């Protein structure tokens, strides 16, 4: 009887499973997604409706304005004639004044290819630093880039960048020679050698060498537009990272004098707004230099912004140093490494890796802060908009297009950098998860 129940099932028991029914309409596809994500509760539904109202009101005012934009007129009145009362932006101010927004209004117009080329080369130079998979040989170009970019942007005699390069090479050679005995010897020896080469070479460059140079010399005060923001950002960030590392190490030092110099410097810089430091650059720094020397405003601003960001970067790196387990320091000591070796080989590679997101944040903030130079009447992109462009008779009374464009420029760069930083964080995560 037992086998009967299995072989001959009762007639009222189904032998084969029914095909699966589709889930009810409210539980599948877009309806389910909307029920779960947009209308799960009554407050949620209200929020969704509110969000729709906000999005609609933004789009309904912005879209016709952007889509109805006029790109090819030469003045605001002409643009308004073309629009004839319809809603639309006058983007023609961007096309007509593109060069001024990018390069400022005094950079010689037949030389625009030079900063453009330098900008393109910047990506080539930055690529091997940003992406580790690229061939390491490219780093040679990165090392050469500062000199090439200097020559392209400022022009003048080629002897100046070549001399600078020779000085650096000389310094590196002396460092290589002396570093075997001690790092401090090598470092200071290298610096002294480089400075000596620059000093002697500076005497050798003939007066007026820039007059008939292949590339016309452009003084720093002629720099402007978004180019100025990019230059300040790139130069100051790259200078302030080594300075920030030195400050962070100095702050952790066991030598009280060194420690307190670093602490006072960092806390002082972090306690004052960048604007006051820019005031120092524009009105006060000249008093600190020997009488008769004239340093141009660009250099003074670079000095102050570099000091500013190096203090912040030092704090980020200090965080990275503090996050390292104490065992790392002890392990380095037990291997018999001296301070410089321990730092270079054990501590800094790990601490810098931890600090990368923070450093990128500082870099983004610094790049945004380069707009502040417009307050001390340098004509960066915001300075151009507030000054010459608003004052121009053809474009008097145009705001949105210009500010929107400047905002877009900064958004693209800063958002790009922060996305890169997130990618880098994932890439560098070597711990097991």
């Amino acid at each position, binding site marked *: 009887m037992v086998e009967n129940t299995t072989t001959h099932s009762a007639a009222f028991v189904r032998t084969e499973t029914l095909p699966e029914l589709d889930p009810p309409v409210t539980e599948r596809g877009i309806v389910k997604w909307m029920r779960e994500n947009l209308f799960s509760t009554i407050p949620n539904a209200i929020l*969704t409706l509110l*969000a729709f109202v*906000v999005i609609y009101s933004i789009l309904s005012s912005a879209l016709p304005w952007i889509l109805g934009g006029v790109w090819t007129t030469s003045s605001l009145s002409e643009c308004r004639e073309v629009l004839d009362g319809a809603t639309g932006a006058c983007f023609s101010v961007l096309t007509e004044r593109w060069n001024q927004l990018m390069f400022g209004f005094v950079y010689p117009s037949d030389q625009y290819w030079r900063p453009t080329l330098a900008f393109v080369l910047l990506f080539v130079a930055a690529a091997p630093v940003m992406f580790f998979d690229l061939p390491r040989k490219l780093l040679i170009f990165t090392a050469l880039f500062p000199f090439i970019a200097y020559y392209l942007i400022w022009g003048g005699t080629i002897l100046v960048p070549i001399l600078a390069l020779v000085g650096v090479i000389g310094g590196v050679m002396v460092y290589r020679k002396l570093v075997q005995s001690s790092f401090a010897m090598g470092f200071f020896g290298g610096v002294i050698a480089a400075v000596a080469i620059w000093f002697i070479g500076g005497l050798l460059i003939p007066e007026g060498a820039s007059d008939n140079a292949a590339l016309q010399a452009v003084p720093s005060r002629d720099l402007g537009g978004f180019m100025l923001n990019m230059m300040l950002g790139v130069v100051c960030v790259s200078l302030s990272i080594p300075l920030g590392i030195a400050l962070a190490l100095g702050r952790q030092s066991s030598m009280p004098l060194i420690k307190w110099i670093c602490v006072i410097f960092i806390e002082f810089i972090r306690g004052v707004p960048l604007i006051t430091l820019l005031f120092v650059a524009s*009105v006060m720094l000249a008093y600190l230099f020997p009488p008769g020397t004239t340093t141009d405003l660009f250099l003074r601003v670079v000095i102050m912004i570099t000091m500013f960001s190096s203090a912040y970067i030092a704090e980020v790196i200090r965080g990275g140093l503090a996050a390292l387990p104490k065992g790392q320091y002890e392990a380095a000591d037990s291997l018999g490494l001296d301070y410089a070796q321990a730092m270079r080989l054990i501590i800094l590679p790990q601490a810098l890796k931890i600090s990368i997101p923070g450093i990128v944040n500082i870099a983004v903030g610094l790049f945004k802060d380069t*707009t502040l130079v417009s307050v001390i009447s340098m004509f960066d992109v915001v300075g151009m908009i507030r000054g010459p462009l608003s004052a121009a008779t053809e474009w008097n009374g145009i705001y949105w297009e210009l500010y929107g464009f400047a905002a877009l420029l900064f958004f693209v760069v800063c958002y790009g950098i922060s996305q890169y930083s997130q990618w880098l964080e994932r890439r560098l995560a070597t711990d097991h998860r």
Partner: protein
Amino acid sequence: MSAITDPPQGSFSLSMLINDTRYRSYTFQAVAAIILALCLGFFYLNVSTNLAAAGLNISYEFLGSPAGYDINQRLIEYDSQSSNARAAMVGILNTLLVAFLACVTATFFGVIAGVLRLSNNWLVRKLMAFYVEIFRNIPVLIWILIIFTIMIAVLPGPRAFRGDEPEASMLFDLFAFTNRGVYTPGPYFTRGLGPEGNGGINWLFVIGVLIASFFATRMVTSRANATQEATGVRPNTLWTNLAIWFLPVIVLLFVLGLKWDIPELKGFNFAGGIKVGGPLIALWFALSIYTGAFIAENVRAGIQAVSKGQTEAAGALGLRSGRIMSLVVLPQALRVIIPPLISQYLNITKNSSLAIAVGYADITATLGGITLNQTGRAIECVLLLMLFYLTISLLISTFMNIYNNAVKLKER
């Protein structure tokens, strides 16, 4: 054994200054001290020769001389005959005013956006992410200029409010939004003390009463806590506390004779009430939404830092969701949120120096702007300016350290 642990007793030789780790740090510090002294001396020499060449000297007498310029937005009495020090004081108060206002509203925006970024509503989440990314990645100076431009270009001039059928009208007949600023009703006292019965001492009374009410409610709450500890029944404190908050103040304001001065169109402009100038509003709003985006990220990180197990454990104990938030999640999240929040407040204070771009008379615009340009005392003005900001940030970071020590996890 002592022979091994004792340092070698050899005679001191000069090379030990470099090679012996016991003495090397002294060498380094001596070199650093000499370099520092040389730099300072070099700068001092340059400054004194440069100043002598320009026929100047370092002197703070200009602070006492008349400033000679007007300031529209001010919290204390000031006219163009007042001293430069008074102008700087106006600037300091204006800086503190806009910093305080922006801190309050930025926290408001930031908390809302941060909480909504974690909402389970997809659309709201994306909208808030959009807000945060847009505002964090565009310089605050551009936001200040954009909002200032909106104020000037979009809002009507006072002239639009005139006539029988005006183009613009006042909100509830109380508030006027014009391109020169926002006019709101202003309180004044008919039976108060001070000049014309309207001195600042009346407000001190009001603030004093409010502080007294605050401590009274604290006492009521702690007594309720004690009762709850002892008996397990919590007495209802809501109505007592509300009464303590509101009744004394209302009585005091009635005694002082509070009246509202409503702005009115007189001639070409509004008179009466309180005028909040366009630059202040632009700066306030721009700093709020810009910093709000940063605070939103801090809030989000703080809430996410509390592990989900905490919420679940509290739920397992039978707490309701409101109490879970206030007793379990928030105290832990605040420990993560507050330190970056305070550095955002510090950033607001420092960023308020951008007031100079829209002509709001903060300390940077008065002392570091007009006074500096009129008197030519660059070094003195910039030093005073830095001193002010340094004081503020040192105060704030001291406060932050005290707080951090108070909420630090007490381990072992």
